[in-house]
């Protein structure tokens, strides 16, 4: 019970960091960052075998954020874990920063794959997972891919490979937030039922509520135990998750904090998150 409370608290902190860094910058990829906040809380709060003091630890689990534009969510999780001081979050996108809009393995401690050109991270994750197996490591690779990103054919090349090679250590997580940049995925390129689709590609697939840390935790625990089959989580999320105003905003892919109504909603969300965090920590 305590564990779940702590994961929820971590999620609130990550959400607050994301919001504050984007507000400070004045713009940013809000929608797709918010939808994976709970996922990052569960990964970093419980499952990942990593050491923030030794980011290059040999047998660590790896994370590949193929939907690289959601970097702000990852950076916030990394800061909460102590990979770098939280003040650094405010340097997002500054010239010379270690936190570029899209993740860069040569710049940020804790980031192992350079992504941002959609589709490419899927194959990189497949390669890392293959390497882990070659070396006989008992380590996992968590691949986070967007539902819009699945438009890229490369994702399906990677999935066929992961399935063929039975890379059970590569945990594929699809952020099914139902929207891409220009609107709803069903209106642009409909991916239909992702669970059925992934199952037909040979994956053991579970579908979970991506705002429910307990459900995410159970799914990961269940899939980590799978042997001899590729595994996938379809994360049922909302683009802009956790802040009603942004969930309801149609174009929330990249938000500009340039009008009163947006700024007011953001301020209110900050206050609410701060109050929640204070209450839980008391």
């Amino acid at each position: 019970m305590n564990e779940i409370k702590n994961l929820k608290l971590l999620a609130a902190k990550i959400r607050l960091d994301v919001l504050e860094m984007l507000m400070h910058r004045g713009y940013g990829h809000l929608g797709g960052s918010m939808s994976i906040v709970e996922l990052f809380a569960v990964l970093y709060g419980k499952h990942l075998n990593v050491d923030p003091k030794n980011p290059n630890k040999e047998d660590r689990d790896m994370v590949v954020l193929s939907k690289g534009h959601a970097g702000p969510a990852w950076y916030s999780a990394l800061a909460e874990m102590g990979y770098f001081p939280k003040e650094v979050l405010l340097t997002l996108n500054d010239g010379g920063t270690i936190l570029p809009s899209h993740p860069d393995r040569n710049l940020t401690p804790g980031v192992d794959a350079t992504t941002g050109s959609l589709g490419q991270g899927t194959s990189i994750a497949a390669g890392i997972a293959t390497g882990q197996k070659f070396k006989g490591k008992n380590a996992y690779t968590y691949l986070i891919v967007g539902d819009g990103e699945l438009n890229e054919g490369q994702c399906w090349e990677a999935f066929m490979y992961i399935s063929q090679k039975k890379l059970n250590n590569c945990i594929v997580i699809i952020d099914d937030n139902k929207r891409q940049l220009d609107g709803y995925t069903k209106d642009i390129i409909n991916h239909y039922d992702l669970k059925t689709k992934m199952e037909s590609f040979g994956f053991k697939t579970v579908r979970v509520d991506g705002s429910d840390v307990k459900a995410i935790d159970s799914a990961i625990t269940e899939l980590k135990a799978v042997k001899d089959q590729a595994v996938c989580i379809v994360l049922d999320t909302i683009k802009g998750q956790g802040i009603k105003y942004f969930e309801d905003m149609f174009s929330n892919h990249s938000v500009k904090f340039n009008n009163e109504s947006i700024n007011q909603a953001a301020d209110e969300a900050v206050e609410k998150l701060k109050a929640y965090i204070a209450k839980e920590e008391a």
Partner: protein
Amino acid sequence: MFKLVENRNEKGEQLSIVFCQTVSELMNDDEKLVFIDSDLASPSGSSLIEKAHPDRFINVGIAEANMVGVASGLSIEGFKPFIHSFAPFASRRVFDQIYLSGAYAKTTINVYGSDPGFAVGPNGGTHTSFEDVALYRTIPNAIIVDPADVTQLKCAVRQAASEEGIKYIRINRKAVRNVYEPGSKFVFGKGTVVKEGSDVLVITSGQILSDALDAAEELETKGVSVEVLDMYTIKPLDVDLILSEVEGKKAVVTFENHSIIGGLGSAVAEVLAENNVNVLFKRHGVTDRFGQVGTADFLQVEYNLTSKDLVKTIESLL
């Protein structure tokens, strides 16, 4: 035939809107024109085309290679597609599809590559293209247009829509400074001497034409006479104009928002070398480096692409 604006510090309309507005107007009269975007209709401005011509607008989703193939197929059916993605995805990412399904198969595809070079701003290194021109230059018969401002962009879109083959038009999506008065005319394959001068020949293209003109003005006050040549299409290159304008100059400098490997600088170097032109020569551009994150202004300074940087290069040559 061209006329320069009086106020070179004024910016024109947002180029993304100009591009799509022009295509949309052409679509009113030409039912063969089609526009395809790849989940970037709101950033590219093409949502206005979607609104005006929903029957001939396609959003293929985040699938650039598929977009080029679909465009090729539409061309085989007699349509004339425009396609859009960010410059690196409209060049690097789809190079083989453009090369084979496009150029080799002799289909017609008009490519709108947005935010090349430092114009990428905060989208950062993964979204940066310093090599898009180099790639397209290797494709037989491809046309590469690097418009300097609103007026030139309108000409580029109109001519692209009226001709067959592969055309690559690279533009900043945002507003850039005006150079030419509306009504000025430009054609593929022809450069323009924007400013006369006797000591140094600067050859440039795209939005940094404005910066080159600033540099020329500054050098003028220091007693150096600089001629500025706007190479509107990097391919086909206006070889005759280069050879005639280089006559009598002490130095030639190319100035490009692109890698010095394979772009305008390389193209001019090839012309000078093969025509035995013996003149001081320098390629000023991005020096074999990757992109990075930052504002466009930061990046322009970081990659030495300001007028001050050009002044320094020219002074160091003389």
